[in-house]
């Protein structure tokens, strides 16, 4: 009976010692690691993927600009042309009225 008590006491002590000593290790593992101070810059030839400039917005902007510029120019020439055409018609009518009177 005494032997049993001792052995269970020993076991409890061993567990307590293990827990006490492993606690700081476990706490350290749970804490977020602080970034280390940099003492030198290490060069790389290629940017990591997450830092690279995306190509799609540049591509879309380029094509959109071309389409808008061309369309805008066509509209501008067509408007100027119809404006001149209207003025010619008005003047033609004025001249005809002038010659008939």
């Amino acid at each position: 009976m005494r032997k049993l008590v001792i052995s269970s006491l020993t076991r409890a002590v061993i567990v307590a010692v293990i827990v006490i000593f492993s606690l700081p290790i476990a706490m350290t593992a749970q804490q977020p690691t602080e970034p280390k101070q940099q003492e030198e810059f290490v060069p790389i030839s290629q940017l990591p993927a997450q830092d690279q400039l995306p190509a799609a917005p540049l591509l879309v902007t380029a094509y959109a600009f071309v389409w808008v510029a061309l369309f805008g120019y066509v509209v501008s020439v067509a408007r100027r042309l119809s404006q001149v055409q209207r003025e010619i018609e008005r003047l033609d009518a004025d001249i005809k009225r002038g010659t008939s009177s």
Partner: protein
Amino acid sequence: MPKWFMPLAVVTAVMFAASPFFIANADYESTMGLVQKIFYYHLPSAWIFLVSAIVCGIASARFLFGGSPRQDRLAYAAAELTVLFGAIVLVTGPLWARKAWGVWWQWDVRLTSSLMGWMVAWAYLLIRKYGGPGSDKLAAGLALFGMANVPFVYVSVNYWRTIHPATTVVPTLPVDMGLALWFSVACFLLLFVLLLRMRVRLEEQRARLDTLYLSLDEQ
């Protein structure tokens, strides 16, 4: 407008609508990836920019030495198109360069001479608009300098150290990249012919308007 104008305009519109499919089907370039696809509109507009400057220069020379008002109208129209296509080149180029080179602009020979050609075309238009009497001849002289700049722009990438791709890129293109490029070139060439015709027509109508005003003053 001539009879061929409307059918050609429809064909050009359909071709422009189809061009993105050819461009999307072309392979990606190994070092530049997606952004290299700007090339399929950038290069044709650059060629049309140079062709337009040549048309303006030749028409100006014929106007200076022959005195034909028809050539002057053609030169005026071509100068405006030089500004339009030059603007497209100078906007799409930096958008491509930002990703490919890491900078928007580089003061190398190709880019700087292209900018110069564009500014000469702008100067031509500004002289015509604000120069007063005799500005047509002055502008025609300027257009000759604009035309002289064209071969310099074209060969600059082969003779000077620059990061701009060389002219040898085009003949070495693989089939699907070449197809997309030449299809776009055809689109831009047809559009140039149509726009030039429209713009010349505008100048013809303006000349007619001037004649009408003169005859009204005489009455």
